[in-house]
């Protein structure tokens, strides 16, 4: 395994001495217009989803059967749904839920994946082979089926949703982290740490992991949209978040059911959801370039 060139030397222009690599990556990221656009859009979406519901005069479950399927007007900016609920508050609150699921399930996947991959890569040998063979086998399982079964059988509660999604997504993370750990652990500074008599745990968590943060950050950014997709997929099938609670998946499902006459019920949540996924993917791509991570999965 050839030693990795530190990110600060990979850029084209001469590097100012003493500029920390993370700052360097930040400067590169700022020059990537799509990534900046993605990041800003994401910030705005998150901000309005978090703050918006507090400012709204309506409650998300507040029905008004006299005003069902209302077109967008000055009282209901995005119109009302089949039960006369204000669509704006439902979209914003749904955004909160979808983003929260995306973040928390990513954290679950990240934690399992990092620890598993780091241990396998650092230990090497037989333990590594056994651990990675298990990942291979798990990879081949039809996980979507299991998630669906879990959600059908054990009431559709949101905690289980995090766990189920996180349990699917940690595999790729484990593979990436293992590969990175294996390439870093042969470097001289790790050798030096070993000579200094540091324990294995300290070397792994204090010296190796911080140096492979780049790929971890990049992959985490790209995991969030795929987790949000799974949540929406499950909610669309009626297995995720349950009404009257709201999530983007539910809103899209409800919107699709009545899109013929009332297309805005599908278009508003669909657009916002797609826009968010776009932003996350642009940001992730930009980070990948900025941190100079090669996209290898095995």
């Amino acid at each position: 395994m050839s030693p990795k060139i530190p990110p600060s030397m990979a850029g084209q222009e001469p590097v100012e001495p003493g500029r920390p690599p993370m700052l360097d990556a930040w400067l590169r990221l700022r020059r990537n217009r799509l990534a900046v656009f993605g990041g800003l859009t994401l910030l705005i979406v998150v901000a309005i989803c978090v703050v918006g519901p507090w400012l709204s005069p309506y409650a998300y479950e507040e029905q008004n059967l006299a005003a069902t399927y209302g077109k967008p007007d000055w009282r209901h900016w995005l119109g009302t749904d089949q039960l006369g609920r204000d669509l704006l508050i439902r979209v914003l609150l749904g955004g909160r839920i979808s983003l929260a699921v995306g973040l928390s399930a990513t954290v679950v996947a990240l934690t399992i994946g990092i620890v598993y991959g780091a241990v396998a890569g650092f230990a090497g040998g037989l333990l590594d082979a056994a651990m990675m063979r298990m990942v291979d086998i798990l990879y081949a399982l039809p996980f979507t089926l299991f998630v669906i079964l879990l959600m059908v059988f054990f009431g559709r509660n949101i905690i289980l949703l995090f766990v189920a999604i996180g349990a699917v997504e940690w595999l790729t993370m484990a593979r990436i982290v293992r590969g990175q750990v294996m390439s870093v652990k042969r470097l001289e500074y790790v050798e030096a740490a070993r000579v200094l008599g540091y324990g294995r745990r300290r070397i792994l968590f204090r010296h190796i992991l911080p140096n492979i943060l780049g790929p971890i950050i990049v992959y985490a950014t790209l995991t969030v949209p795929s987790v949000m997709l799974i949540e929406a997929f499950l909610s669309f099938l009626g297995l995720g978040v349950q009404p009257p609670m709201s999530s983007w998946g539910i809103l899209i499902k409800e919107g699709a059911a009545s899109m013929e006459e009332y297309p805005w019920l599908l278009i508003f949540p669909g657009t916002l959801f797609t826009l968010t996924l776009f932003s996350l993917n642009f940001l992730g791509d930009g980070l990948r370039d900025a941190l100079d991570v090669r996209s290898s999965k095995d």
Partner: protein
Amino acid sequence: MVLIADGTALGKMPQAMLRFIRLRLLQSILALFVIITATFFLLRFVPGGPFTAEKAVPPEILRNLEAHYGLNQPLHRQYFSYLGSLVRGDLGPSFKYSNRTVNEILAEKLPVSLELGLWSLMVALSLGLTLGIVAALRRNTWADYLASAIGMIGLSAPSFVIGPLCVLAFAIHAGWFNASGWYFPSDRVLPSLVLGLAYAAPISRLARSGMLEVLNQDYIRTARAKGASELRIVMRHTLRGGLLPVVSYLGPAIAGILTGSFVIETIFQIPGLGREFVTSAFDRDYTLVLGTVILYATLLMGLNLAADVAQVWMNPKLRLE
């Protein structure tokens, strides 16, 4: 991925290949066994049974029903008798559709899903490969940007948003297709396009980066220097190496298309396996759920294996590892 560990000489290739296949086959059978066992016990330990959903069945009748399906026997007995009939290819009777076996139901639903999957795969491959190859050959031109834009759309716009929007635009407003159903050849178009588009995106990205990597190699420069035409360079020298990443992605892609059809079948009301699976899970139709899981798992693992074999076959470097 671990392949054959010993440095087999070039001449013994087929044998090394056979060993690789045998190893993976063994692994798959083991995984399949784990899946069957896990699903079987998961189904038995969840609250509610196949007959609790209906209107209150008198306890005597419930007992009769359970005796009829062998549900009153000890769990391990049920498990082994299930495994026994499974070996003979018998997936048992359905709990929900009286007088129908799981085999019959699967035989009826599978072809529909397979057809949908096949069309979608063709859409994904033809669109993805064309975009990716053109993008790599015309790097940083409008064609490249168009390809990456389509790639981003496929990556970020989920099929359950694009699907209904397509129905709205092409079926309801334009009137070119039926909004749902699976009767006429034209009914295949929208579902396959929507499902295929999602996988065209990653395929085009992989094809683009793979092609670019190969196009930068010295031997391509040599071929150019020798005056080979652009077409010949692409066809003879670049495609095989450049498309390797796509081949290794085919396994996951096919898996995704198979499970992606859950949503597509729901949107377009296609009587396929995906919709049946979700319904059977809601109905607690144990045998049908289990049969569907086994069928999906077998399909997935078989296709993954095929993709891996194709990858090893196309890449001499891997054969030697």
